[in-house]
């Protein structure tokens, strides 16, 4: 119980800091002599909490990760309408509901996953190509952005240390911040205008499942395959949360790990179906703690933000994101950030669907999984 609470706290903090991931925490903790009964709930709680609190940097700072890239735009847009708190509430609500849905679906998943995974595995590449082709056909000029960002992804993903932060922050974060013409953040309200979009939460859980079954898929990659204009914030947040909440059942049934935290858990213990109830408890505690932590932080941020000169704050954020990219990936990170920012700005000028810039992950994934290589 203490491990779950501590993990929730640590995950809440890492989620708030752009560029910091629970995989790093997992790598550090694995080198310690802490008992596995402490490490397993700690790592799971940290991963769950991280997915919830990362709504704060994506809304207020425009910092993107593979999990939140497509949520940055709508969340930041809402911030500039004075609805930053609502954006955070939508993301948190979607995440918590997706975690609850996933926990409730766990017995069914434990039953059907082994057979469905075996059936889907040989078809993975064809399914991905088909879904991507159908989606691209609806995006017009977006195909150009898809190909250019895909080319950028092919060049940088294997040749740059920790490339995702610079790549996705450039495409979705700094490019948005640079083209913003507002000179101040409007007064923020805590009123909630949009009704909860439950169907997108269910789609998000489905997306999380698809993502777990298809290798090398990221949250934004999966979300990009759902061609909806509205509800993206709910969809991305719920896919992200469902992906993490599926970790225990994936480990128990398929012994399949998608993240560094899951790899760490898999290396420590053999998770079985009887452990799923206990791990469900860990995830619920983490979801509760992180959601409250995020809401309190958002309340604080919305009081402080309107008092800060927006242009100066934007400049500081862009510099901060640049420094983070440099610390994570060195000089090459800055180059990737600049190139991705230019491409992200270009896609905004062309008024293409922003999701097409996810070609930076989708195209390399398709190339990597192409059956011609295997």
């Amino acid at each position, binding site marked *: *119980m203490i491990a*779950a609470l501590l993990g929730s706290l640590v995950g809440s903090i890492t989620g708030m800091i752009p560029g910091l991931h629970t995989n790093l925490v997992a790598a550090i903790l694995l080198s310690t002599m802490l008992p*596995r*009964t402490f490490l*397993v*709930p700690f790592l799971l709680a940290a991963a769950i909490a991280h997915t919830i609190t990362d709504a704060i940097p994506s809304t207020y700072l425009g910092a993107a990760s593979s999990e939140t890239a497509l949520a940055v735009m709508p969340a930041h847009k809402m911030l500039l309408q004075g609805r930053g708190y609502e954006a955070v*509430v939508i993301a*948190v*609500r979607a995440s*918590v*509901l997706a*975690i*609850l849905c996933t926990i409730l679906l766990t017995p069914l998943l434990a039953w059907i996953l082994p057979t469905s995974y075996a059936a889907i595995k040989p078809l993975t590449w064809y399914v991905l190509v088909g879904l991507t082709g159908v989606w691209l056909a609806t995006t017009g000029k977006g195909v150009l952005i898809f190909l250019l960002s895909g080319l950028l992804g092919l060049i940088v993903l294997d040749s740059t240390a920790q490339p995702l932060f610079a790549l996705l922050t450039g495409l979705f974060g700094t490019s948005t911040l640079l083209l913003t013409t507002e000179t101040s953040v409007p007064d923020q309200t805590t009123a*909630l205008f949009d009704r909860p979009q439950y169907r997108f939460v269910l789609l998000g859980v489905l997306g999380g499942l698809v993502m777990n079954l298809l290798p090398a898929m990221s949250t934004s990659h999966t979300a990009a395959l759902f061609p909806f204009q509205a509800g993206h914030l709910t969809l991305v947040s719920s896919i992200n949360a469902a992906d993490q909440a599926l970790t225990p059942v994936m480990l128990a049934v398929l012994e399949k790990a998608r993240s560094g935290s899951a790899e760490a858990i*898999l*290396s*420590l*213990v*053999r*998770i*079985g179906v009887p*452990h799923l*109830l*206990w791990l*469900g*408890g*860990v*995830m*619920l*505690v*983490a*979801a*509760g*703690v992180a*959601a*409250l932590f995020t*809401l309190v932080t958002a309340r604080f941020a919305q009081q402080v933000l309107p008092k800060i000169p927006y242009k100066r704050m934007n400049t500081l954020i862009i510099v901060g994101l640049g420094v983070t990219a440099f610390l994570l990936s060195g000089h090459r990170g800055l180059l990737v950030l600049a190139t991705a920012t230019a491409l992200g700005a270009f896609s905004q000028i062309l008024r293409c669907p922003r999701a097409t810039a996810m070609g930076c992950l989708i195209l390399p994934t398709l190339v990597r999984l192409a059956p011609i290589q295997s």
Partner: protein
Amino acid sequence: MENIVWLSLGCFVVGMLLLLVTSPDLPPNTISAIGIITNVQHGKVSKGMLQTRIPVVSFDKKLEEGSGMYTGRLQSYKGRVEFVIE
């Protein structure tokens, strides 16, 4: 107070109750190997070979050549499988 606050508090309380009523009897993800350790090298990490020709690594114990039963886990390191003694 928004519904999300109640939902979060509900999650927290139910989660704590689940943690109270369930116990984590987690088996280690380890395997056992029986064999003779040969070619021991002592350095920062103590290394040797089992008869299976799988490299054996121990971070906190000095390996001794000879027959024995060892508990640990298999892990991938630089593209090779290693047996890490725990």
